[in-house]
């Protein structure tokens, strides 16, 4: 749940009256663009990506123009630009027109919760406008502060002093930067980054003007909903499947999913954050999804999760792999009953399909749960192997992968035959 860029950043900055560059969205008319160029002399044109996309400048995805013709050309070039970060490809849908802010100083500023200090931290430097990772530590001030009192003027002042920042920028920053704590703290943010803040000379007095914006929200904090951001702003972060599962987050129990490989052939409802980390790691590209359904979900939630998961992923799956360690408090009977009923539902809705079920699990009501699942699979004619928690999880994973390989090499046909599927 991230926002990058000034299109939405400006609205958030306005909430705390933090000065920012003039920004127009893709709807800006020719007349408006002309007027912006006239006013600011220089215009930055940036593609608009939903979600978190960084380093647009490095990717050549920022247009810098001083006339209308170039502005329109850049608009055309960047409107549907694609940005690649590793395997992740993001496509823009629109551009922003941002007025240039002439300045001699560029500031980097961020607030995050630090795992080193276990408290919120401000990171600041007057050597901004570059990748923060590229700066040596001595050029950065990292200042932890008390979350009960928040970011104060003296934190900013002391930090800039320690960095030897030019005196003329300190006072304007001291006056304005603490406002950003309100934005961070009141709307459930996990990270807020302004880079650069350009120190605009406003008739002899410097004013910090935010020229780029980045923030991430805590999805467990409903405070961001008060911003009334459009529903689809974060939706692009998630696949359709993930969105459908996410609607179940309100219930007790985990319901985290992430699509690993939409051509995978093992679908593994996984229980526990640890199991999630390990199972996904060992299944690799065989996995369709990574999931954590632990936390003792009630029957209704687990059944809903199962139905959604099976609907999306069973058609392509060779192996349904139910895996977790020895549960402490997740009721195995309830969760297995919910999944078994989900499998039955799927077969009723979509007819039988060649599938092999592998289970590795331990925990309360284990045998009752396994028995229920066993009876369901027997009644549906699905072959299976269940392993208890005294089998190494990695061995069970290897077994599931071996079954998957066999399924790809004739096993599927064998099960089709036994299930009487033509």
């Amino acid at each position, binding site marked *: 749940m991230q926002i990058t860029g000034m299109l939405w950043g400006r609205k958030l900055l306005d909430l705390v009256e933090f000065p920012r560059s003039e920004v127009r969205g893709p709807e800006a008319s020719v007349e408006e663009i002309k007027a912006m160029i006239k006013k600011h002399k220089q215009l930055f044109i940036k593609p608009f990506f939903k979600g978190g996309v960084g380093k647009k400048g490095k990717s050549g995805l920022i247009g810098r123009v001083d006339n209308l013709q170039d502005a329109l050309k850049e608009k055309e070039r960047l409107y549907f630009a694609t940005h690649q970060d590793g395997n992740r490809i993001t496509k823009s849908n629109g551009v922003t027109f941002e007025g240039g802010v002439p300045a001699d100083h560029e500031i980097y500023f961020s607030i995050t*919760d630090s795992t080193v200090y276990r408290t919120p931290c401000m990171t600041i430097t007057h050597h901004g406008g570059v990748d923060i990772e590229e700066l040596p530590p001595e050029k950065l001030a990292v200042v932890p502060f008390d979350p009960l009192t928040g970011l104060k003027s003296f934190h900013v002042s002391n930090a800039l002093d320690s960095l030897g920042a030019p005196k003329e920028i300190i006072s304007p920053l001291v006056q304005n930067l603490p406002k950003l704590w309100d934005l961070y703290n009141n709307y459930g943010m996990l990270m807020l980054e302004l880079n650069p803040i350009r120190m605009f000379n406003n008739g002899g007095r410097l004013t910090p003007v935010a020229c780029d914006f980045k923030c991430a929200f*805590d999805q467990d904090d409903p405070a961001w909903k008060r911003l009334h951001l459009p529903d689809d702003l974060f939706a692009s972060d998630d696949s359709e499947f993930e969105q459908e599962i996410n609607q179940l987050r309100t219930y007790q129990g985990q319901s*985290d999913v992430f699509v690993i490989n939409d051509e995978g052939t093992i679908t593994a409802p996984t229980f526990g954050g640890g199991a999630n980390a390990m199972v996904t790691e060992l299944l690799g590209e065989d996995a369709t999804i990574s999931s954590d359904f632990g936390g003792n979900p009630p029957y209704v939630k687990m059944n809903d999760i199962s139905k959604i998961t099976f609907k999306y992923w069973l058609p392509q799956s060779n192996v349904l792999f139910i895996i977790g360690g020895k549960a402490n408090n997740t009721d195995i009977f309830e969760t297995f009953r919910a999944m078994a009923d989900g499998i039955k539902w799927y077969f009723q809705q979509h007819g039988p399909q060649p599938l092999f079920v592998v289970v590795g699990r331990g925990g309360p009501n284990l045998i009752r749960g396994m028995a229920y699942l066993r009876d369901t699979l027997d009644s549906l004619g699905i072959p299976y192997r269940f392993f208890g928690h005294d*089998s190494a999880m990695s061995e069970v994973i290897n077994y599931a992968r*071996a079954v998957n390989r066999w399924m790809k090499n004739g096993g599927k046909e*064998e099960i089709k035959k036994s*299930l009487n599927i*033509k």
Partner: protein
Amino acid sequence: MHKEGVAGFPYYLGVNSLSELATKDDKVVVFNILGKESSGVTPVSHEYSGGNIVFGTGPGKSGKSLSTKAGKIPVYNSIQEGMAAGHEFNTAVVYLPPSGVKDGVAEAVRCNPKLKKVIVLTEKVSVKDSRVMRAICQTNGVDLFGGNCLGVADSWNHVRLGGALGGNHPEESLIKGSVALFSNSGNFTTTIAVYLSTAGWGTTTSISSGKDVYIHYGPQEFIHAFNNDDRSQASIVYCEPGGYYEHGLKSDKPIIACVVGRWKAKLTKSCGHAGSLSGSGDDAEAKEKWFMDYFGVKDIYTPENPVFSKKGALVTNIAHIPEALTAVMKLNGKKPDFEPRGNLSLKCWFGNNNGAVLPKELDVQQVEAIDPYNGQIDALKQQVGAQVSRETLKDASGASKMDPKTQVSQIHNVSILDASNKTFEDNLVFALTHSYPSASGTSMANAVLNAYVNLHGQPALAAATASREAGNSPNTVQAGAVSIIGKKKAQKAMDAAEALLDIFKLTDLNDPEGTFDYKSLVKGASGHKDALLGVAADPKAAKVLDVCKSKSKSVFIDFLVDFAKEQKGHVSMDSIVAAVWATLAWPSLRSKKISKTTLVRLPWYSLIYSTMVGVAAPEGKHGADSFCGVKNDDLLTNSFTRTAFLSLMGRDASEGELFEFQVLLGLIITNGPGTISAQGSKGAVSADGPEQPDRVQVNKGFIGFLTHTGFAHGGNGYEAAAFLIDQFKDTALKDPADAKHGVDLEKLAVDYAKWYGAYKQEQKGLGHLEYAKIPCVNHPVFKGKDVNVDPREEYVSKLFKDKGLYNVFLDFYHHLVEGLFKAKVTKNVYCVNVDAVIAVILLKMLWSDYKKGSIKEEDIEWASFMAFLFGRMIGCAAEIDDHTNRGKNMDTRTPASKVTYVG
């Protein structure tokens, strides 16, 4: 701002040694103690720890208590109230919902200056609340654990604080030893402890840290306390990407680090643990490096590549922890705490190939589970047969369905097209057992089904005759006869089935057609003598027994024979029926496809099957010694398909006819639970109350089916036959099976098409839109293409073609749809639908007699309707059994709010 605690930490830390983390001196208060999670977990913690919980809170729940084996835990509205009642505590355990956690912690800190530890179990606490409650605890000198953790446990002190480490049997996992355990994963805290025991290592203190963005009690604090704990000789740190918590850990004692989650580097949002989202420099590989640098090793420890130092080892698989620990400890001159308990090899507790042939390496055999699970698995054997959850079955079925796209119906997931390749008797067995019988099973089924077809002198036949003479339709005649086959008629056979079930249910018998040593059962079954043996020798039973023994193998039949010898009694016909059906159904019972109820009631169904086939023949065909001219003894070895043909047609069938008849019946089995016949049978079961399955009258279920057929549903097959008779009556057709019939089908079809076109135009001109339609052409689904095909008809046509079976009437139908198109009566070539197949098969069988004048058109109508009832009997038997096992009382009713008054 924080209180001063352990020196050297930039924040407050109170716990100096693991030995003081969870002790008998700790007194605990539990927030939201009566919540779902807490009320399940807290009693176990309380009992395990010797009663360390002083009270719990629950707004508005003051005065209540939580019962545990260690006594009741009182509940108060608030902390303040509990403290005012005189309770003292130093530890707060928080089970509040996420939005209430911060306030709960603040309240505990505010009210209790003696508070030292707060453990937050709640998941999905916002980062903001987490940072605020940490600040509150820091300011007031309180150690905070979690959130989203499972608390801490100490095997030495036998104390568990907070969540459910070790599950509901902590002793199984929390075994006293020398290893301190810290894990981001609650589940892995327990799982790793279990794994450690397989190498002989036990634990001192186990900490589930949680893996939110904030880990309040992190590895640095843990290692500090570990260093000061003399009991702990080594430590395990399980961690995931995200955060710098593990950076710079140091100890004089060995550490085994397990870092899992390299793949998480590609995550853009958290999945699994909320805090397992790395930024720059804190992904799994970075953490691996931190540890490798500290250990002074160059690689990850694996069994194949055991890389370790005195300081420790890094693993990325929790299963490698025990081995790595043992290796490192050996280097440090330390031995395991106890003899290894079990091992981590692959152990299958439940498995079934369900008919698939697996390669040897995957065909892992079941082994006995560890204690106490082995006992629980043994106890499962007492639960014989399927136990299906009951649900409302109005317009729903677990037996049949129709694919709306293909229009091909299925029974127990077998399409009727495939079912039509099976014999009548095999389908009758399949409807109830969900499995097709073996050849041996089929022979047995035929023997017992045929044994009751001849109804000479039986009331059921008298009822049918009376009904027939009163001018009733075939279904009504059948209903009259079936109403006589009440429960008492089948009771003895059902008692015998129950007895066999009782004797064999706890044995290892899986294949009743194989070999099985039942000698000890013969000795021990004397209590079932009355149910299984007759008082006098029954010649009919002896003959059926001979047939069964000569053609088939059945453990149950063999058992009966030996039991009769042992008891000096006689095998009764009822027990043979029970034994045969038990043989047919046992594998399905074992694999939970059918219930015990079904197995016991199979003889009742069997008797009804026989009766329905029997009464199709008029009374005069039932002699004392023969049925339709076939000796009773000879009938026993007949296929039941042949007997049904005999009963219906009054003559024997040729092999070709037998196949066509079988296909005919197969196609009729079901059209899904929405058909009137299925609804009738289901309604009859529903009204009896299937939640008490013993009260459901099987014969009444069949009556429900029969009364829900009629001239429009079941009897309408005759329309097509009548149409065909009309077309062919003036031709010289003698043998419809002869492809050289000499009839110009094309001309016949085109002539009719032209006539029909003119007729249709005329009727439309007259405003008669209800003009006569040609039966069995066109279909609401299979239409709209240039040439349309009903895939079901296409399948059967090919089947017959492959068998070399010609049918002039079907051939005519194909000419007809083309003729209608050529004559411009239709816009495209209509399909010949599957109902035509049923009509043409039947007419082909009857044509010769019809031409000879030995049967009349009304006889064809009768036979057509009766054939429908035979076929549908299969599907409705499945519905009756399914509804009995799965349905609810009166579940087919329509609520008053859903019905409409149209008067």
